[in-house]
């Protein structure tokens, strides 16, 4: 797992969300806009008597300003802390009593809230979501406790995880101006200084129906969902949204390198190249070629990095690439690796650069290209097994500004990528002037000795 783009209110779904790169088919999707500007999108899937409701806000950590990083995620937590109608904690208990599961997640680009329930309980989810879109309480005492919870979340996700830390430092180095440089969870100092007014300000700024999309997927009738959406969200007035300023990362003028020293056993190398994200589904070419390139390098055990670095040359214990074309902001193409015993990060970097050289000089084979395309085709079918991921895909596309029903077109465009296009994007983007290199330099644990497998020497008491 290379990138932690999402924060989830409780950890269970984090990994699944990171894996949500599959392409759900948009064959039976209905869309309508309410008079207040709220988008409603319904995906029918009648295999099981369940429904998922998701409310997506186009407000993520990239909309934050310096000094209040983490406020998008903090507000996500506060959304469970009571409204004028529903006391703190009652949201979760009400959904639970209805047999439902609920949670929320914040990314750089958006914040979303969801409930999974038996289809008969869908109205309850919509009623509760509409209520907290406008009636949030902001009790000082709840805020004080919840900000402690978020600081614990930060310790757990980032401060005590060496790879996460390296990734956080990488983002802050690769970007010098774009807000993607700050972590979604926020810098600890900003969390410590966050005030309830910051969270309230965020809510008042962004939580409006005309900045939201409701996605419902499952065993539902679109007309009935539109009717319910009108009933619960229709009365909420739209609001003027703040101007969103275009933020463009300044050009990079040469390779950037950082090292972080933290307690760990193995070194770790992370490389990131600036690359474009998808903006125009119909006419863009390069993001699709980069996506295929990622599959060539790291789509499966058959991909190049595993085959060459891990299995053949055995320079690395693991080697990965990562590229996400669905972003509101700019993209990065990542390469990473953990050196094998007796090898160094320099060896791994040299091996990764050799793979880039081979791509640029010799291109890719027809077989490799065919394999990546076969995996994309299959993934599109597999994604339909999960109602949740179908809703996720639709909400993500709509919220970042791409057509919600463009999944099929994206897959078609990916199938059209040629070997030459893959080689060309490697040549154009995987170059030093685009590159940031981050190295984890492992430090011994306290006292220079590692805890023993059977810690006889450590303090132990019995009760």
């Amino acid at each position, binding site marked *: 797992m290379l990138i932690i783009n999402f924060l989830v209110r409780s950890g269970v779904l984090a990994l699944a969300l990171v894996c949500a790169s599959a392409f759900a088919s948009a064959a039976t999707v209905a869309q309508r806009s309410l008079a207040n500007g709220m988008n409603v999108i319904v995906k029918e899937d009648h295999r*099981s008597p369940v429904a998922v409701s998701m409310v997506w806000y186009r407000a993520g950590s990239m909309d934050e300003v310096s000094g209040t990083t983490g406020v998008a995620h903090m507000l996500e937590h506060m959304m469970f802390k009571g409204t004028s109608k529903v006391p*703190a904690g009652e949201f979760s208990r009400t959904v639970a009593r209805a047999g439902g599961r609920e949670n929320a997640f914040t990314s750089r680009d958006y914040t979303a809230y969801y409930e999974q329930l038996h289809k008969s309980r869908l109205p309850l989810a919509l009623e509760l979501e509409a209520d907290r879109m406008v009636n949030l309480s902001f009790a000082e005492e709840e805020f004080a406790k919840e900000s402690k919870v978020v600081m614990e979340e930060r310790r757990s996700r980032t401060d005590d995880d060496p790879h996460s830390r390296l990734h956080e430092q990488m983002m802050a180095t690769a970007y010098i101006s774009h807000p993607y440089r700050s972590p979604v969870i926020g810098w600890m100092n900003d969390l410590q200084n966050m005030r309830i007014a910051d969270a309230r300000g965020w809510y008042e700024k962004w939580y409006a129906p005309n900045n939201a999309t409701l996605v419902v997927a499952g065993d539902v009738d679109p007309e009935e969902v539109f009717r319910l959406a009108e009933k619960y969200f229709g009365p909420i007035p739209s609001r003027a949204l703040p101007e969103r300023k275009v933020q463009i990362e300044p050009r990079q003028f040469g390779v950037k390198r950082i090292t972080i020293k933290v307690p760990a056993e193995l070194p770790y190398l992370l490389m990131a190249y600036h690359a474009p994200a998808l903006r125009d589904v119909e006419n863009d070419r390069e993001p699709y070629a980069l996506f295929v390139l990622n599959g060539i390098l790291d789509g*499966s055990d058959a991909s190049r990095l595993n085959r060459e670095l891990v299995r053949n040359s055995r320079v690395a214990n693991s080697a990965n690439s990562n590229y996400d074309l669905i972003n509101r902001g700019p993209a990065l193409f990542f390469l990473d690796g953990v050196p094998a015993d007796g090898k160094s990060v320099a060896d791994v970097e040299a091996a990764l650069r050799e793979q880039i050289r081979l791509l640029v000089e010799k291109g890719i084979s027809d077989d490799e290209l065919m394999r990546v395309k076969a995996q994309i085709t299959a993934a599109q079918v597999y994604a339909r097994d999960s109602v949740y991921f179908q809703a996720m895909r639709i909400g993500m596309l709509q919220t970042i500004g791409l057509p919600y029903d463009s999944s099929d077109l994206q897959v078609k465009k990916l199938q059209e990528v040629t070997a030459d296009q893959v080689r060309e994007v490697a040549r154009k983007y995987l170059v030093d002037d685009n590159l940031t290199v981050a190295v984890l330099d492992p430090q011994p644990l306290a006292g220079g000795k590692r805890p023993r497998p059977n810690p006889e020497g450590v303090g132990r008491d019995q009760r």
Partner: protein
Amino acid sequence: MTSASERILKVMLTIACAIVTATADATLPIQQWQTAKGARVLFVETHDLPMLDLAVDFPAGASRDAPNKSGLASLTLGLMRSGAGAFGEDEISERLAAVGADMGGRFDMDRAGYGLRSLSSARERDEALALLAAVLQKPTFPQQSFEREQQRMLAGLKEAETRPEVLADREFRRLLYGEHPYSQRGSGEVETVAKLRREDLVDFYRRHFTADDAVVSIIGDLTRSEAGAIAEQLTAGLARRSQPLPALPPVAQLNMARTSRIAHPATQAHILIGQPGVKRLDPDYFPLFLGNYVLGGGGFSSRLNEEIRQKRGYAYSAYSYFNPLALEGPFQVAVQTKKETAEDALKVARDTLAKFVSEGPTQQELDAAKQNIIGGFPLRIDSNKKIQDYLSIIGFYRLPLTYLDDFPVQIERVTLEQIKEAWRRRISPERMATVVVAGEDSH
């Protein structure tokens, strides 16, 4: 305001409706049979999506490792895809990718196996199944691949030893299970993995991956006769076992409280509290499971979350669970909190547990738990993947074929008294194993 009796009536009606709905929705036509060589097969036919999910599992999990060869079971499983029949390592991966199939190892304390997700169209399906059939029945365990994977495993173990959550988990297993096989981690230990040889893998495979012990679980776009042929294809080449696998020794309950503290520079303490818990086929399973929803399994509705996170802001994560296995798998309470609040959080967790065991849930809590578990039952089986996981469990642990249909009914039947009685008898707050890594006074 409604009166208490009205409220109870309303709750009962809600539960009754939920059961009717859940049961009506839930009926899963599971077909079961044996292959020619005696492997158990469970199959659900569904043609909604042009794909299939299947798995073949064996009693070859971490508990089957000899103590001096801990790590062997997982290394054996992993190496099976590094060469099989006429297929080399790269060829297996490339051919699977070429048909868009996902094949992966599945491993826990009891079970080891391979799962496969494939398109159901003939070309893709046949190729994917041919590869899985070879991996299951003709693994070659190439020496070179063995050495490489052994080295990677050792590196992973050394890295893991620096992680507080790994240290906590290992010590917790040791306190709970002592010398019992359930004390062993699938990953093994540096000392045991370093001594493994290729012959160990060949021997482990021969003894554990037999047709008699195989469980094949299949769901997807197949007819019964196609599923039958697939089950034969995946098991006909497996060996018959010469004698049944030895039974695991019984799990002993803890006779006294034990606490371990391990120093670590992490910012957060990792706190684990627990005991050997419950078996898969255990008459107390439902009262314990339902009670645990109230204690720490019900997310934001649970007492542990309420006391530790929502009331005090001590932790992002605070929960408890039972992991039912062939024998008594762990019951575990887990909290992560910054060093400074570790002792307070530990005390709150212990007090919350002790109070729950001594008093049990309230009627209101029990109603809410039933409403969630019964009302939410359809969510447990709303995808092929989830159903396939249940098929595997039902087959492996020999649960009744009606297990899923019975599940909401079993939950509904549990009474407050049964929960109190089962928890008092099975869970002893005064005899808990406790592990604190990176606690306040340890660094």
